[in-house]
């Protein structure tokens, strides 16, 4: 009977019912669909981080002055402390149930100085001369000559733009270029490699140094690239982070030293800029951009048009022939034999010819140029300021590139390059006891008095100070006490293809480590066991949940959750107020009806139940429909939504975002329906029970 009356009442005032119903519908829909979306994002980000770098927990030394941040906006040097002997920590943690592996790590920055093209070519020439490789040095010398001739021609073009005050230097450089383009100059580099000077007095090394010191610095394009690296046990990293995937080249062989570039970093930072710009245009077109409406694309083409000369100078004699032949046919210009003119024509791209020219560039030009400033297979030098204060220069071989699966474009994925732990330790610059003793001995021998900055002038120039004394020049043997054997040892070690044992890799310093769990869902239960194991082994190491260790990314995830919670709360309160208000108004409008019902014997409980049931029916029907619609939307999108932009890929944890109806969303959706139904009923129903027949009749009057 009550249900019939409640339904009748609801139908009697359809507008009110629909208004309140819409709010309940929309609230339930939003909470179910929105929470499912946000939960999916949160879970994706967690998976992205836990399975690519952080593990469920990170550990650092308890003496760390800064809190570990795997991702940080701040590139200043941080003090995350150091774990002196990783082996002990690994043994203690891997004995804990649910721990699958402990992966050693160390984060830092280094600089890569690539030099300009001529610098690199001259370094090749120097090496081939030293190696006595006559045939190869002739090829490189011929190519170098081409580069110098191009440089000399471009240099003359710039004469009109030179500031008069710089004219002396300009004239001097021009004179040097003129000398470096004479036949006789190149005869010196044409002598037998390895010789210091031939019978005619030609000295290849003197000519080489002339080019290195007077010519190469005139060529623009020197790059200094900052590189963030993660030193780790590469084998264990690969085994335990399933998002890791090799892209180009090969894995660093087990126990060997080497670097794997992050594919994203490799493309963006180390690739030939002309090729990179073309890639960027292609990526935009592939993503659906219109060439004519893309201002960046036009700017990239404009910049590329100026690169013909630079590209041409990279081509040696054989490459020039191949490129000219290829472009003559493709561009249908059989009479044109100047490589620079042909390249300029190739790079003059527009909406109509871009895709064809892009393919042509990669087919005809790219095989003959240095596409990356550091190529797979190269050994290059990483320079870092070691923690011991000394600058560290460590040669490292490039084995390949990698990516984190499904995260190619995510900002998270592009951050780290992976290097072996031995190279990391050398860059970190641990001061050995022997070195410390040597430094102390040197300091004691010289005995420099420390001077405080603020008191320096009084201490150095106060009473008794004499600033000038007479002395004598005296011959001394600077090498008498010098021991250069360590330089030779380092050179030998760098050249050696040494394989390090697992014990050597484990025994030594790391900064942090990732703890991978067999069941990541049991992370909360495992944490106390990890802490207990470390404490009982006497290790001063702190366990940090991945979310805290993630730094700026962790903060972003936390913010998401806070925003979600606040939004849910606000929406629920607003919905309650509106529904409550609507029911209240409806109750007051029905004062006469309720009074009559009371007059014919309906008790307070009956009236309360009737009003309450109306609200419950509204909540169940419309809230339920909203719940269903929300769940239906999630189900409809289970095929996935393409994540086009970088940031969307991060949220999606891949290239496709697949929302999942989460338990949390179901609980919140149902709770909303129950809570809004219950609380929005209470007051109107209470007011209704207070209406007496007499009061109702008095109002009707």
């Amino acid at each position, binding site marked *: 009977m009550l249900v019939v009356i409640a339904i009748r009442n609801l139908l009697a005032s359809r507008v009110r019912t629909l208004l309140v119903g819409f709010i309940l519908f929309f609230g339930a829909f939003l909470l179910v669909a929105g929470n499912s979306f946000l939960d999916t994002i949160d879970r994706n980000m967690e998976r992205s981080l836990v399975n690519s770098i952080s593990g469920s927990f990170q550990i650092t030394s308890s003496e760390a002055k800064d809190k570990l941040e795997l991702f940080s906006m701040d590139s200043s040097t941080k003090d995350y402390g150091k774990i002196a002997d990783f082996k002990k920590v690994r043994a203690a943690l891997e004995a804990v149930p649910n721990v699958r592996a402990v992966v050693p790590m160390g984060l830092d920055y280094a600089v890569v100085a690539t030099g300009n093209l001529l610098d690199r070519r001259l370094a090749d020439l120097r090496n081939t001369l030293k190696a006595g490789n006559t045939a190869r040095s002739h090829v490189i010398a011929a190519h170098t000559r081409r580069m110098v001739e191009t440089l000399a021609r471009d240099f003359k073009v710039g004469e009109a733009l030179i500031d008069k005050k710089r004219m002396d230097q300009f004239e001097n450089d021009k004179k040097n270029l003129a000398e470096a383009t004479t036949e006789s100059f190149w005869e010196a580099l044409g002598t037998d490699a390895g010789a210091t000077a031939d019978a005619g007095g030609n000295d290849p090394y003197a000519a080489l140094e002339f080019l290195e010191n007077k010519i190469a610095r005139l060529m623009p394009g020197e790059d200094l690239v900052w590189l963030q690296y993660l030193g780790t046990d590469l084998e264990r990293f690969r085994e335990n982070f399933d998002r890791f995937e090799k892209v180009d080249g090969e894995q660093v062989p087990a126990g060997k030293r080497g670097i794997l570039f992050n594919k994203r970093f490799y493309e963006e930072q180390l690739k030939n800029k002309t090729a990179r710009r073309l890639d960027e245009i292609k990526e935009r077109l592939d993503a659906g951009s219109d060439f004519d409406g893309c201002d960046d694309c036009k700017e990239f083409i404009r910049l590329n048009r100026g690169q013909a000369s630079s590209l041409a100078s990279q081509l040696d004699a054989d490459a020039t022939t191949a490129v000219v032949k290829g472009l003559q046919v493709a561009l249908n210009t059989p009479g044109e034999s100047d490589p620079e003119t042909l390249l300029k024509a190739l790079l003059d791209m527009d909406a109509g010819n871009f895709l064809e020219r892009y393919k042509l560039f990669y087919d005809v030009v790219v095989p003959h140029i240095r596409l990356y400033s550091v190529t797979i297979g190269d050994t290059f030098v990483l320079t870092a300021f070691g923690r011991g204060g000394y600058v560290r220069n460590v040669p490292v071989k490039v084995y390949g590139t990698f990516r984190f699966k499904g995260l190619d474009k995510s900002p998270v994925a592009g951050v780290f390059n992976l290097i072996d732990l031995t190279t990391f330790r050398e860059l970190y610059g641990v001061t050995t006891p022997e070195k410390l003793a040597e430094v102390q001995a040197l300091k004691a021998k010289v005995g420099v008095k420390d001077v405080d900055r603020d008191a320096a002038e009084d201490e150095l120039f106060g009473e008794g100070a004499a600033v000038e*004394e007479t002395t004598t020049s005296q011959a001394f043997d600077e090498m008498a006490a010098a021991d250069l054997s360590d330089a030779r040892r380092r050179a030998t070690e760098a050249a050696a293809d040494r394989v390090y044992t697992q014990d050597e890799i484990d025994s030594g310093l790391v900064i942090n480590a990732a703890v991978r769990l067999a069941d990541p869902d049991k992370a909360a239960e495992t944490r106390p066991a990890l802490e207990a194991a470390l404490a009982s082994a006497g290790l001063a190491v702190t366990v940090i949940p991945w979310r805290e260790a993630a730094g700026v990314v962790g903060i972003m995830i936390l913010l998401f959750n806070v925003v979600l919670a606040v939004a849910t709360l606000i929406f629920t309160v607003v919905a309650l107020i509106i529904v409550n208000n609507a029911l209240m108004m409806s109750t007051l409008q029905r004062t006469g009806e309720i009074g009559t019902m009371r007059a014919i014997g309906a008790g307070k409980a009956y009236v309360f139940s009737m009003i309450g049931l109306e609200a419950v029916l509204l909540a169940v029907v419309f809230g339920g429909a909203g719940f269903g619609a929300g769940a239906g939307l999630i189900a409809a999108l289970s095929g996935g939504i393409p994540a086009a932009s970088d940031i969307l890929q991060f949220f999606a944890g891949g290239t496709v975002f697949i929302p999942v109806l989460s338990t949390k969303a179901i609980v919140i959706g149902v709770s909303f329906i129950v809570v809004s139904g219950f609380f929005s009923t209470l007051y109107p129903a209470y007011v209704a029970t207070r209406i007496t027949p007499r009061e109702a009749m008095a109002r009707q009057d």
Partner: protein
Amino acid sequence: MVRLALALTCLPLVATALTPKELSALVAEIDDRQRNSGDWKSSVYIEQKQKDKEDVVYDSVIYRRDATDSLIILFVGPKTESGKGYLRIDKNLWFYDPGTGKWERRTERERIGGTDSNRADFDESRLSEEYDAKHLGDETIGKFAVHKIELVVKTGVDVAYPKLLLWVDTQTHNILKRQEFAASGRLMRTSYYPKWKRAFSRSKGAEVWYPEEIRVFDELEKGNKTTVLIRKVDFDPLEPNIFTKAWLESKSG
């Protein structure tokens, strides 16, 4: 009485004011006194103290040929740093590490061995050639009366710092204090030169001045400071082909 005391206090400042000609002659004299017409070899100790880090020290040898503007800084200790070196030829500053066997171009701002010192601290003085001078007034540092001089880099010259302030002893004409500023006007380093030495050079036929001690205070990383000590000098001619990559490679390879 008070006026008399004030007048006496100000007297040295008024008496030592420099005319533009005197200023130009003074800066040229600073350069000329440090220039050796022939070669230069010195044993140099560098000690860097850094906030929250261990001290960094180098035992090094400096080779200089002022006639060709060439310079080598070769580290000979500690052992792990030995053989690394810098070579300046023309406008190039090269760094060589025998551990890598590679040469790298470095800029004028290069922190030598990661310390607060830079190439100019070890090289011939070229103030008149590189900067325009302006006399800002006279002051005292400790017990010494000094000329305060501003130097601004000339157009087209590549130097580590485009603006310098020098405090030059009015009596001995030695630099006692030097401040270096970035293009933004930010103070980067303050250096003190508490001890100057002069020694007779046969090649020059006159005395050569050099700072026996340089105290460099990093104004960017407060708390970092570097001391450079020139312990021995030798003005005898060096090998003719010393300022080449090949020579440095042969020494440290």
